[in-house]
């Protein structure tokens, strides 16, 4: 299983992302967004991870998303890049297992220039959407304990 927690009210899962074609990797805290169709890297993380300067369509490893991403603040056309997402895997007793849980795919990336406001407070954070969450056996929101247990298929 994977173990997440809450930042006040928001469900979060820390992980490590590797972007092999952009020679970048780093720590990311993902919002667990069961209402999102797709996962994405938020504008803040795209800068913090050093992705932003490499995000242009002249780069053969960067594509434009085929469809815009629509949220409460409007629509944007993100970039798409390959990513390996790693999360610490735990045994039934919560003990850390030697092998992490890893998924590989393409992920949408937002940049500050795509945002309608320069105020980072209003920028979306990186999130895990249905494209990743659908692979979990179940997600157990233990609100009283401030924990989220992601049960993985056997």
């Amino acid at each position, binding site marked *: 299983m994977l173990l997440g927690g809450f930042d006040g009210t928001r469900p979060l899962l820390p992980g490590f992302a*590797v972007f092999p074609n952009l020679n970048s990797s780093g720590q990311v805290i993902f919002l667990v967004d069961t209402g999102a169709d797709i996962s994405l890297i938020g504008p803040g993380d795209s800068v913090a991870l050093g992705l932003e300067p490499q995000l242009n369509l002249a780069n053969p490893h960067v594509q434009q998303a085929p469809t815009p991403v629509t*949220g409460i603040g409007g629509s944007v056309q993100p970039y798409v890049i390959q990513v390996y997402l790693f999360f610490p895997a735990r045994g039934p007793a919560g003990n850390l297992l030697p092998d992490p849980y890893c998924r590989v795919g393409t992920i949408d990336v937002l940049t500050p220039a795509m945002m309608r406001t320069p105020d980072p407070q209003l920028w979306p954070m990186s999130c895990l959407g249905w494209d990743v969450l659908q692979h979990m056996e179940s997600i157990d929101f233990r609100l009283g304990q401030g924990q989220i247990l992601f049960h993985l298929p056997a």
Partner: protein
Amino acid sequence: MSTFRLLSAKKCQSICPDVANQLEKATANARFLKTHHKELVQKYASQWVAIADGRVVGHGPDLAALAGELSRQGLTPADTLTHFISKTQQVFVL
């Protein structure tokens, strides 16, 4: 819609040989952020903070400037967790 393929443990190792260590750091930094959140709001409201090894290693309102400062310290995004500390509680509908 894209889907994410599961990667074997062996392949994980080849992609990121040091991943266990990196995940340990990421988990510790996320724990620090959670347990010190109130203190961080008092000290660094409306700023980006970078956390590494259980302490704040950089902060400021300009994320690009902070990234440059971290780089000068020899820290990479693999070492640090960077997070924006909101001044006021936001109400989101996602």
